[in-house]
């Protein structure tokens, strides 16, 4: 029997999220996301990406970002070319992120701003492409022998090159919790006085590894995903990138959102199946609330991990039911974006912060047959409702869980 870790004893100092953005199948930037969420317009479409199996793409639906192919990196960053870094660069161009990073760099100094990036597969799509073009002697073609691309830190290294920041630069790769955990690591770096600000984010792009890997695990649906619906039979994969700039609240003017708490835990159960009681998920949510000093009843919106796999959703609903009153509006937005894996943390934190800022609480797109295993917290319909606190859940393989709690200025 595992020892149950105790909750954090003290409340953390809130961090201002001075800027945030996401680019996904819903579009580029926050306004595009809010508009698609309000319109109930999914970004999912039939899979048209290779590699092909017996002449056809894997029969599933994907959340693909339009236009990545037509958006090469600027010449001075060309050594970092790959689909994942292109998507990172695209995402950085919106909602004033790049300008805000440069301002933070000028204000604090380049070495006082950290970069903490999350990804599941980084640029492994480029490695797959290189293997599809091996020379006759079985070696990588010479133009694809790029050591800093075929490795997980490709993303962090690229963002460092793109921003000129010189603080600690880390790529966190804990599968689908990656770009939620970046907020926790950045908060610690700031609290410990190592830096004064942090650029956090995450990027994951669709590639053969994830399409055929999740397919091999029997977790991919042939239909658009329908999280928490009784008929759900698997996930729809997606790709996305997003960023947020974190600074000490006292160093900034009023921000749209504040990171009030984070919670991390391990299931200690199975590599690719959740703990049957959702114990790890409960610990992550409990710790985020405790670190924020916020009662569960004061959370207005919870963006669920909600992958639409039979196991994840029933276990997550059970964990939510154990902690939250029925009044909570909890939903999965993966019917809009697909499961963006290592980018899910930042994309769904963006959606949670949009809910805070605009009082729009998304429902669960594509879903309409309630699963009796799910509690009253799980909502299929969207609603307009001002809220004070919003949470995001991100859970990954290996039983790696992270929950984040955001709030408005107190």
């Amino acid at each position: 029997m595992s020892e149950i870790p105790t909750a954090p004893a003290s409340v953390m100092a809130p961090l201002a999220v001075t800027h945030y953005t996401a680019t996904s199948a819903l579009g580029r930037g926050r306004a595009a996301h809010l508009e698609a969420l309000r319109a109930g317009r999914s970004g999912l479409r039939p899979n048209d990406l290779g590699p092909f199996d017996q002449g056809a793409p894997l029969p599933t639906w994907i959340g693909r970002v339009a236009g990545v192919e037509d958006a090469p990196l600027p010449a001075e960053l060309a050594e970092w070319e790959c689909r994942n870094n292109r998507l990172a660069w695209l995402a950085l161009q919106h909602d004033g992120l790049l300008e805000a990073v440069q301002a933070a760099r000028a204000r604090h100094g380049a070495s006082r701003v950290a970069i903490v990036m999350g990804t599941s597969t980084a640029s492994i799509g480029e490695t797959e492409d290189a293997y599809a073009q091996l020379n006759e002697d079985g070696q990588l073609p010479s133009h694809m022998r790029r050591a800093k691309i075929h490795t997980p830190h490709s993303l962090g290294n690229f963002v460092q090159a793109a921003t000129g920041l010189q603080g600690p630069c880390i790529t966190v790769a804990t599968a689908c919790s990656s770009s939620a955990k970046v907020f926790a690591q950045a908060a610690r770096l700031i609290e410990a006085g190592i830096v004064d600000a942090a650029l956090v984010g995450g990027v994951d792009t669709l590639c053969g590894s994830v399409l055929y890997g999740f397919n091999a695990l029997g977790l991919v649906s042939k239909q658009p995903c329908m999280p928490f619906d009784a008929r759900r039979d698997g996930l729809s994969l997606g790709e996305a990138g997003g960023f947020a700039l974190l600074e000490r609240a006292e160093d900034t003017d009023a921000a749209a959102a504040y990171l009030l708490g984070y919670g991390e835990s391990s299931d200690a159960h199975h590599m690719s199946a959740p703990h049957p009681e959702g114990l790890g998920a409960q610990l992550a949510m409990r710790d985020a609330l405790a670190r924020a000093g916020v009662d569960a009843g004061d959370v207005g919106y919870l963006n669920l991990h909600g992958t639409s796999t039979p196991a994840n959703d029933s276990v997550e609903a059970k964990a939510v039911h154990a902690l939250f009153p029925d009044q909570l509006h909890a939903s999965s937005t993966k019917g809009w974006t697909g499961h963006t894996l290592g980018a899910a943390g930042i994309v769904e934190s963006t959606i949670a912060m949009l809910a805070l800022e605009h009082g729009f609480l998304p429902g669960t797109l594509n879903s309409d047959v309630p699963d009796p295993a799910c509690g009253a917290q799980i909502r299929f319909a969207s609603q307009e409702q001002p809220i004070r606190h919003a949470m995001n859940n991100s859970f990954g393989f290996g039983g790696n869980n992270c929950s984040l709690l955001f709030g408005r200025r107190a």
Partner: protein
Amino acid sequence: MSGLVAYIAGIGYWSKGLPSWADAVAYAREGVLPENAPARPSPQLLAPNERRRAPESVAVALEVALAACQAADRDPATLPSVFASTHGDLGITDYMSQTLAGEDPASISPTRFHNSVHNAAAGYWTIGAGCMHPATALSAYDATFAQGLLEAMVQIATGDPAVLLVAYDTAAAGPLMSIHQATGTLGGALVLTKEATGGRRIAVRLDEGAATPSRGPLSLHEPGNAMHPMMPVFDALAHDAAASLCLEAGAGRALLIDIGPA
């Protein structure tokens, strides 16, 4: 920046030919290599069938993690952990890429797919140890060990009484061998504590500076591994004298490390 301080309560180490920290210390001090060193780590935390099937990266990480906990006399279930690996498992990356480029991409092994995540070792560790504390997995290319150590020290500075740091890399495979100078199997683990419990003091801070050359015996014994940048720390720990080191921390920055005397 001000420095971060912790104490080293336990050390784990595995490289080919030096399958324990005691063997590594004996080699560093006296040049003695153990006889019959196993070719592969055999992490006791896993059930025997899992032990044989585990990817080498997972095997070496779990081997050194458990050794460090045992040396520190700490229950693995009680420690948050930081897993640091430059490349993850390049053998699995090679397998995935070969299979996807072949005739039957749908034949990908589900087990090898979930073992391909960078946090595979962290996952197997928390499952095997029954540990529900947070675990993270990170990479920072050549600065991976430095950033992993920094994160572990930051976790202690922000409230955790003890943290397990595990650093490891394995060899490149297939066509990736032409781009990654990555050979051998290497793992190092430290249990760090906030309170002085008889372990050596370690203090770190970020600054500028040139990386300490890796010329110690442990470093020269395992020269080609991607986790090689950690070697000055373990070569210093193999001796009783205090040491001041400098590791590359990325973007022209350095992690300055002061290790107290034994």
